[in-house]
Structures are given as structure tokens and as C-alpha cells.
């Protein structure tokens, strides 16, 4: 078993958003859609989660996509081909329930788009008809459009500033589809918390089963600490072992948002340590 995890390829998808291919044979062999890994970039690094976007068991590789927002993603962004990541553990979390549902809307916002790629692929393979909705702040930040188009039955785009597709949010696109009388058997969404909450509110009156992948702060990722706890249907759950996917209509998004802000000051300070 290789002790360290080397970066085999690196590509910039959009400003500040990178895609890397990493050697991690054991993880590649076991990975399933919806699962994630916990990384520690170097000796002084923190542990943080990233979703498994893709994997190749034959080559022993995994694909990660991340936006450089804080100290750790900036450090990760600085790694070049041939560099090593100190620690990666996974695959963690429960796999997505992949079944034949029928017509499925899959929604990705911002870097969350990377997360929906394994969903779309697996749901398509299971015989579902896929309507993909992508969103970003502007056209330059749209991710994986071509890849997702090639495996979706329909694809819609929204940008906050209207530089491509519908001006507005992914939830607006979903809403107008529903208002036109489109029916979905399942909606899945990944992205910033306000976006996931908006999607949940759009589908709630239609009683469409809606699944979101939650992104709370995590430390160990194995159920040891409860740092990632969320309230779902009035009960406390640990996202790392009970999730990360939950019924969107049961999630306390406000609490999740509050908890995500725990370290905002510290994060700003830490970010400044990486130029």
C-alpha cells in the first residue's frame, strides 16, 4: 500500500477551480457514488472532506474537483503533478441509493456540480431519464457542462448574472419546469446551502422526494467527534456516517448554515497564511 498519494494530473477548469487525478488504489477499488474522502495536504494541514467525482479501479486513481476557497484548498491548489498529498482516507459516507426511479432532476450549483457527476452517471446507468440543471455565478465558473450534457437527457443552465442560460438560480429553472407541468420522481441537489434549501422549498409543495448532499464541517469523518452533526427530522445525525445524503424536506438548513460559520474569522486568518 502506497504511503503517500501522488498527484498524477492537474487541470484548471475555471478560475480557482481545479481537477486533480490522484493515485489511491484502495480508495479507487472501493468507491461508490455519493462517497467522499478526507484529506490532509501536509504535516500541518487540517483534515477536510472532498467528494469523489470519479475513480478508476484498474489504474488505481481517483478524481477530485475543488475550489480554492480556504487555506486547505489553496494548499491543495498549489500542488503540481508529481507532488504528494500527505493523507487521504476513504471512501467515507454512505453510497447514494441508486435505483430506477423514472424521471430524475439532478441539480448542481457552483463546485457542487462536480458532486452531481457520479450521481448522473449512476442514475443514468440504472435506467433513469435525467434532467440536469447546472448553475454558477457566471459563465466562466460553469463546470463539466460537456461531460454532463453527454450523459443527461436534457440539460439546463442558469447563471446569477445571466451570462449563460437563464438569469437566476437553479431553483428558478426547476420551479418553471414544475410550473410547466413537468413531473419528477426524484430530485437530487448539491451545492451551497442556500441553493439546496431553495430547491427543497420548490419541491416541497409538489411532494417530490428530494435528496441533498450536506456539507458540514468535518474533522475525522468516521463518526468519532460529531462535529458534522445535523438535525434531520428533529433528530441529530452525523453527516459523515449517517449521510452525507439526506431527505431535503427534513433538514434544518438554518442550523447547518450557522454551524458552517463557526470558524469564519479563523478561516480568514488561516487563508492569509497561503499566498
Amino acid at each position, binding site marked *: 500500500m502506497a504511503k503517500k498519494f501522488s498527484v498524477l494530473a492537474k487541470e484548471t477548469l475555471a478560475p480557482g477551480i481545479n481537477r486533480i487525478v490522484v493515485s489511491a488504489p*484502495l480508495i479507487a477499488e472501493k468507491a461508490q457514488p455519493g462517497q467522499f474522502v478526507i484529506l490532509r495536504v501536509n504535516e*500541518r494541514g487540517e483534515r477536510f472532506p472532498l467528494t469523489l467525482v470519479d475513480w478508476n479501479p484498474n489504474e488505481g486513481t481517483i478524481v477530485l474537483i475543488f475550489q480554492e476557497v480556504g*487555506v486547505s484548498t489553496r494548499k491543495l491548489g498549489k500542488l503540481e503533478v508529481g507532488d504528494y498529498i500527505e493523507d487521504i*482516507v476513504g*471512501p467515507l459516507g454512505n453510497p447514494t441509493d441508486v435505483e430506477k426511479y423514472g424521471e430524475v432532476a439532478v441539480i448542481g450549483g457552483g463546485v457542487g456540480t462536480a458532486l452531481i457527476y457520479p450521481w448522473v452517471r449512476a442514475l443514468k446507468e440504472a435506467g433513469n431519464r435525467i434532467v440536469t440543471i447546472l448553475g454558477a455565478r457566471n459563465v466562466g465558473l460553469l463546470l463539466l457542462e460537456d461531460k454532463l450534457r453527454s450523459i443527461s437527457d436534457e440539460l439546463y443552465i442558469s447563471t446569477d448574472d445571466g451570462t449563460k442560460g437563464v438569469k437566476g438560480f437553479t431553483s428558478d429553472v426547476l420551479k418553471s419546469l414544475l410550473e410547466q407541468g413537468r413531473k419528477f420522481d426524484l430530485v437530487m441537489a448539491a451545492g451551497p446551502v442556500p441553493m439546496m434549501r431553495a430547491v427543497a422549498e420548490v419541491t416541497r409543495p409538489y411532494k417530490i422526494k428530494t435528496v441533498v448532499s450536506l456539507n458540514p464541517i468535518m474533522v475525522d469523518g468516521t463518526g468519532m467527534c460529531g*462535529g458534522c452533526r445535523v438535525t434531520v427530522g428533529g433528530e*441529530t445525525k452525523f453527516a459523515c456516517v449517517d449521510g452525507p445524503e439526506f431527505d431535503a424536506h427534513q433538514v434544518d438548513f438554518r442550523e447547518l448554515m*450557522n454551524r458552517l*460559520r463557526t470558524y469564519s474569522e479563523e478561516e480568514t486568518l*488561516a487563508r492569509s497564511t497561503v499566498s
Partner: protein
Amino acid sequence: MPKLPVDKRIKCFSEVALGYTEDQAVAEANRCLQCKIPRCVEGCPVGIDIPAFIKYIRQGEYNKALEKIREKNSLPAICGRVCPQENQCMGKCVLGLKGDPVNIGGLERFVADHEDKARKRKPENVQPTGKKVAVVGSGPAGLTVAAELAKMGHEVTIFEALHAPGGVLMYGIPEFRLPKKIVNEEVEYVKSLGVKVETNVIVGKVIKLDDLFEQGFDAVFIGSGAGLPRFLGVPGENLVGIYSANEFLIRVNLMKAYRFPEYDTPIKVGEKVIVIGGGNVAMDSARSALRLGGDVTVVYRRTEEYMPARRDEVINAKEEGIKFVFLATPVRFIGDEKGWVKEVECVKMKLGEPDASGRRRPIPIENSEFTLKADTVIVAIGQKPNPLPVRGEDKVKVTSHGTIVANPETGETDMPGVFAAGDIVTGNATVISAMGGGKRAAQAIHRYLMSKA
């Protein structure tokens, strides 16, 4: 034993107990009566020949003293520091009947710290048996099993889920009680015996028990501990600023958040810190929070005499300025508009009849609610077993409490070739009891492997 002065130690994470000098150690060793029937040995869960190693200290033969200890215990620098000796070896010392018992823990620590680390430590004349053993978890139980089996000639690989070995020694017990350098040295000793350590591998999630047997391991030992946090289950417990002790201590110890931003992991400690609980984990959390600048109050539902924490550490905590509220427990947490904790509402308790543990059961007193201000709360009311390695394995029996069913003398589980010991079998207990269980399991594994031939 000399200690770091209070004003100095509350500003840093340096070790508080400073250890004996040579003269002090020899003087303490000279107090030992060298009993013919030593009761101290009965009190030691792994049965170290205490009078014999103390005799070597008197003679200045520190390496021989260490060898004598290592016949029974592979982690003396750790046990000398964290064992509750007052209830074990020292609790039985005859000198304790009329005065102070011999400071056996202090002497064990002196010997281990005095070791010439450069000295070749790998035992000679070990005949390889050709048998392979997988050890799941690198805490005190796993390290002990691995060391014992390696000394018997078996090929041992430890699988650890976290990025660093040591289990609770690494992520739980703070630097000021157990320096991580010491843990690393003890792990290096175990490695020097030929043990391999694979970090970042979660057995039960990424590798199943059957996979291990398929990979050619002849036996598996599970020492996955009791590392899952317990919460109170009262309203408001998910407010921002409320930590499980596990999360708080993992951030501080394993991730070195006390050195943020030199290290990347942050931690947040407000002005008023409330720690809930009365065990060693509560003391460690409280003293860590104090060092991070908080004004710390421990809330415990029984009285001081029932606190499960080591007496010495309660004394240290009091010296450092930690306050205590006894006979009280939280009923809810109250937050502000941003979802941050601001107050803890508690209810007063009285003690009723003794419960199964022999301790008097705390009973809430009606209409006795009161509130304490809090910016940070650390919940340290115990840990649950971590049965992840056997999740979904119907061949290994797990109790409704999550502990693995294993023979306490041998560690045997219902699945042939799979053994377990430590907190995963007993529920959360002490470092030395995990090592004692590990030691017995290692002997049973050895017998099992050799009978298979």
C-alpha cells in the same frame, strides 16, 4: 514529583509533572521494602515485577530495570504517566497503610524516559513463525497485542483509521499529561520489533474481516476502542460552540489547534467555558480550554468523591483555577439569534440509592433550575464503543451497548481467528486495562496460531 509552576503551565501545553532526577528516583526506590510477597504486583493489571525493577534502579542499572518492565509492558513511558496507580499498584503498596506508598508510576516513567533511544531494541533470537496477524486499531490494546505477538515471532500489521497511530494516546490525552513525543517513541519501539503500521485504513468500511483473511492473515485482533461521543440529548445541543469532548480534544491534540494558525485546524474557545462531566476526559477538556484562554467551570451530576477522574488530575485542575459545580446537570442549552450558545440551563441533583456501579444515583430536584453563562460547552459524559470493524459481520456478536462479545480471558469472539479486547469489549475504561486485555489476547492468539501449525 516536581511539577511545572501553575502560573507557567496554564499558558502552555508543556508537561506538568516533570519526572524524577536520578537522585530523586534512587531515593524513592530506596523506600521500597522489597516485600517477599509483593502486593503491588497483584495490583498491576499486567503483573510487572515491581520490586525487581525497583531494585535495579537502586543499583543504577536503569537499562536492566527497563528490560524487567518490558517483559510485561511494552509502553512504560505511557503507563508510568497515565495509569490510575492510586487504584492499582500503589493502592496495594504496604507503605501506603501508614504513609505514602512508593511512587511506582513515577519510577516506571523515570526508567522509560532514561532509556538510551539509540540502543538497538529489537530482541534477538526471535524465530519467525511464518504466521501473519492483522491488528485493527493502534490504541493501547492494539499496540500491546502487536508488540507481544512480534516478540513471539509473528508478522504483525496494524491498521489505523486516523493519520497517526496511538488512538486515545494521540488524539485524547493532552500534551500536558502525555507528550506526543513520548507516544511516538513508544510507537517507534513497537515498530522496532518488526510491526508494520498502515494509517488511513478503515477496517469495516474499506476492508472487511474476510478481506483480511483473504490477504493471508491467519488471525485478526480488534482493538477499535470506545471512540464514539455521547451527547446529553437535551434541547439546543447542536448550537454553535457546543463540542463533544472528542471533537475538542481531537482538534487540540491530534490536529494541534492550540498552535493555530501555525497549524491549519482552528478551535474556538470563548470567555466562559462549561465542561459537562467528571471523568479524565472532562478534566483534560477543561484544562485544555483553560490553556486556550477560557474561564472554565466543570459541571458534574454527582459529588466530588464520586468523580471518576484521577485524583492527581482533579488536584491539578483545581490548582490551575478550574471551578466546579457539583450535583447539577444540563436540561437545555440556550442560544442567541445567530445560533451560538449563550447559556446552559441546569437542574440541581441529590444523591439517591447506589446504582449498579455502586455509586449513588443522582436524582433531579424539582424546580431547582438555574443558568450558567457559556460561550463554549464541552460535553464529556463518556464515549460509546466503536464497532465499525465488525459492522455488517454476522459472525462476530455485538451487544446492544455496541461492545463486542469476547471471552475476557482470551479475547476470543464467535468468529474463529478473530479476537478483541480493550474498550471495544469492556466499554470505556483505562489505558492499562486495555493493555491487560491485549496482553491476554496476545497469548491466546499465539496459542491459536501455533495449534493451527
